[in-house]
């Protein structure tokens, strides 16, 4: 299944060295502000985002690949504006959701893993090869023809990750990827994230997931209230939560 795509804009020239830039970004749903005046330049390999429920961190994550467009300001990925080049941005930034059941759209494992490649127009033979390779990498090779709904929660999340990584994005955003998982599967997903070569942005409530990260942002009331190395940022987050 392939979808019609417009030709890339001639003025949209990507520069991978530029990373992800947010310039004066605000976002509101109706009258409710969710993010206010966010200015960031994200170039590190491992970036964590923490914050209380409703703080705006999921909206922040969705801004990074154009799932949500800013009400004001600009989000640039490799120099591409999410507003003007949303399709190209989404090719560059993969997105893994909290609930894999809402992300797996085809009945069987291999079919779902191939979905993004079909949309990219990857030839059938290459598609099969890449799907086989990604399923093997995440321990799903024996499940290729199995119904996706019969997988365990951990396997579903691995399939969701495989379905994104098979598209070979340059960056991957994870929105609370371990929240619905038990300890064993959470550790497995954490290991998978840790081994990725891509730039990774992880929104999470599980602070141990951020061990070894380069940078952690603390979101509160729609603003970035701390932006530091993990130890300092997590200490600031704990202090923030204890004041409530």
């Amino acid at each position: 299944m392939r979808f019609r795509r417009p030709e890339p804009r001639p003025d949209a020239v990507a520069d991978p060295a530029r990373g992800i830039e947010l310039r004066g970004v605000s976002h509101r749903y109706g009258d409710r502000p969710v993010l206010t005046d966010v200015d960031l330049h994200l170039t590190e390999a491992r970036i964590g985002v923490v914050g209380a429920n409703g703080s705006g961190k999921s909206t922040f994550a969705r801004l990074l690949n154009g799932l949500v467009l800013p009400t004001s300001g600009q989000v640039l990925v490799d120099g591409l504006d999410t507003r003007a080049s949303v399709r190209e941005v989404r090719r560059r930034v993969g997105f893994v959701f909290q609930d894999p059941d809402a992300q797996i759209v085809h009945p069987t494992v291999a079919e779902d893993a191939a979905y993004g490649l079909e949309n990219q127009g990857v030839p059938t033979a290459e598609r099969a090869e890449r799907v086989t390779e990604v399923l093997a990498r995440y321990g799903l090779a024996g499940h290729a023809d199995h119904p996706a709904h019969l997988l365990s929660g951990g396997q579903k999340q691995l399939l969701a990750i495989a379905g994104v990584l098979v598209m070979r994005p340059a960056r991957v955003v994870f929105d609370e990827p371990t929240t619905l998982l038990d300890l064993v599967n959470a550790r497995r997903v954490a290991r998978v994230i840790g081994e990725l070569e891509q730039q990774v942005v992880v929104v999470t409530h599980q602070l141990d997931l951020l061990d070894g990260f380069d940078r952690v942002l603390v979101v509160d009331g729609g603003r970035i209230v701390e932006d530091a190395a993990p130890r300092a940022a997590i200490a600031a987050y704990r202090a923030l939560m204890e004041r409530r």
Partner: protein
Amino acid sequence: MTLALYVPRRSVVHRVPAGGKLLALAALAVLLFAVPTLPVVVAALLGVLAVGLGAARLPATALARQARTVRWWLAGLLVFHTLFSDLPTAAVTVLRLLALVLAAAVVTATTRVTEMVAVIERLCAPLRVVGVRPARIGLVISMALRFIPVLAERADRIREAQAARGGSARGIRGLRTTVTPLLVQLLQMAHTISEALDARGADDVPPARGRRSPAPAA
């Protein structure tokens, strides 16, 4: 609940293109209605079993499961035709239906959903002239197959949650207390699914959509 009808095997039947299998199924149906004699129907039934159990190496349980779903229809037809026609007519009618059900089961057990959907997309291709996009029809069918069990699972969870608090899913009140939260969950899920489709390149959503979309769990 399972919609897992495909049985992975390396067999010649599995390798036959989905379109060919569907054509053969249609041809069998035409034959059995055009020549409704006991020898033809019995031969067809034996042929289907030979293809399913022999050539396709399907487990007998896969075919028996499909036959079980129509057992009451078969019994009803047998009684009806025995009472109002005669025994040979009853036998032909029942065996014909059984042969077709098993033949359809062989087709679904040896054909991946994507192959079946691809055939539907090809059949829908002429609709392009009136603006219909066959790929979209295929995606809708695939997603329906994918989400029916998810939907059933969510409904079960809601019923269990109500039962745990002393509620009952029976009656009008039970229906209301099940359907309302289920609808709310489905709408939230539909929003996330649309985001997931966008994120994986489905691609043709207008850029302004993000500003109008409901807030995700922030």
